């Protein structure tokens, strides 16, 4: 059975484009409807990445900025999970790219001017490929919360940004992982752009003591679901029949 079209996106699973509480979205959200069509080979193919594209420390944000010479400051954690599609199948070889603030809430980015200091031993970017079963993992430190200009006094909950690439360009997804129990999540206008409560819950990673290593690091689990594809049941059927 070969793979068919991508499963159309269920937009109710996603944030609204326009949300006045997240002020920048007001002028950056399309006001006309999206044009919904069946996927084509353009969306069903995509760039492939392999281990030769990655460096040996790319998955280790605790050490990758210093090339292993020194370790970043902060609460040491393993973040791991599985990348699957909407049918539950693991996606092998998915590229998982992450970026985050340091333990004090500061990004190593030329546009971040927050007064919290940079950590000389922390870059804040990492990446890895999922294995045969779709599993991925990386080491990092828990990022700090940080303030941002929006309403009078808005703070981002601790979060890690994720960019996911499966085999299809139409599966591209950028999201953010939050940490279980953070009281800032339910005050955050960006988290609140996801209106479905169960969907917002799915962005909160639980503490996973089964993968924590004694006297070394804690662990959080974050599973990710990308778009799936229909099976091509009756491939030679002409369009629209």
């Amino acid at each position: 059975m070969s793979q068919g079209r991508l499963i159309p996106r269920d937009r109710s699973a996603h944030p609204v484009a326009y949300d006045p509480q997240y002020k920048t979205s007001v002028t950056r959200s399309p006001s006309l409807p999206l044009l919904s069509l069946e996927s084509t080979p353009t969306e069903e193919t995509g760039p492939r990445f392999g281990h030769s594209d990655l460096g040996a420390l790319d998955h280790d944000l605790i050490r990758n900025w210093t090339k292993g010479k020194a370790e970043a400051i902060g609460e040491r954690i393993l973040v791991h999970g599985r990348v699957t599609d909407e049918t539950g199948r693991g996606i092998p070889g998915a590229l998982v790219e992450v970026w985050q603030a340091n333990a004090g809430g500061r990004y190593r980015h030329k546009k971040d001017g927050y007064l919290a200091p940079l950590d000389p031993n922390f870059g804040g970017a990492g990446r890895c490929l999922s294995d045969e079963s779709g599993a991925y993992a990386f080491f990092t430190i828990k990022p700090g919360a940080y303030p941002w200009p929006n309403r009078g006094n808005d703070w981002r909950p601790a979060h890690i940004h994720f960019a996911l690439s499966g085999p299809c360009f139409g599966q591209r997804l950028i999201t953010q992982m939050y940490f279980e129990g953070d009281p800032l999540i339910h005050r955050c206008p960006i988290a609140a752009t996801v209106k479905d409560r169960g969907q917002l819950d799915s962005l909160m990673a639980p503490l996973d003591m089964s993968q924590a290593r004694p006297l070394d690091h804690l662990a959080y689990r974050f599973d990710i679901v990308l778009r799936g594809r229909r099976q091509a049941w009756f491939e030679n059927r002409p369009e629209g029949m």
Partner: protein
Amino acid sequence: MVQKLTQWRETPSQTAGPYVHLGLMPTWAGNAGAYEKELGQSPIAEGAKGEVIEIAGQVLDGTGWPLRDALIESWQADAAGRFPGTEGADPAVSGFCRFAIDPESAEFTLRTVKPGAVSLPDGRVQSPHIALWIVARGINMGLQTRIYFEDADRDADPVLSRIEQRDRVETLIAKPQGDGRYRFDIRLQGPGETVFLDM
């Protein structure tokens, strides 16, 4: 109770935020050397077949102000209309590029080869096009659109033909400026709003 359908919902999107370059284009963020190899630096390598072109433009918000923090990914077929990774595709075309906005000019530039028309399994033909995916602070879910070319045949394209308001087709068409250069502006909202796709 009926049988239970086991189906997973897609993980919800969240905005890429203003620091997306840190993760995807570290050199642009001021962190050259963070990775030995950055991904998507060019969609073509030396020796790629076809006409090399350069597409430049701005990403404008609903007030007409150009975004400076957007990041765009592109994906395309080679000059013969074959997607990289499929049989017979030009090995010098990766087809994938990541590009950001120049802080001075507020413009992006994509240097690539002009893609060929793509034949679909059902016999229809897609006109030459480049798929784009646009993310930025304030964009809660990446926006899909396509670049088509004014100087290529577009009559039978199955996507363009589905746009009801025919004058909106223009928002997806890059205009030749001579010497292989094209202009393509993206309007997120308001007058001249680009057609965004859900495919």
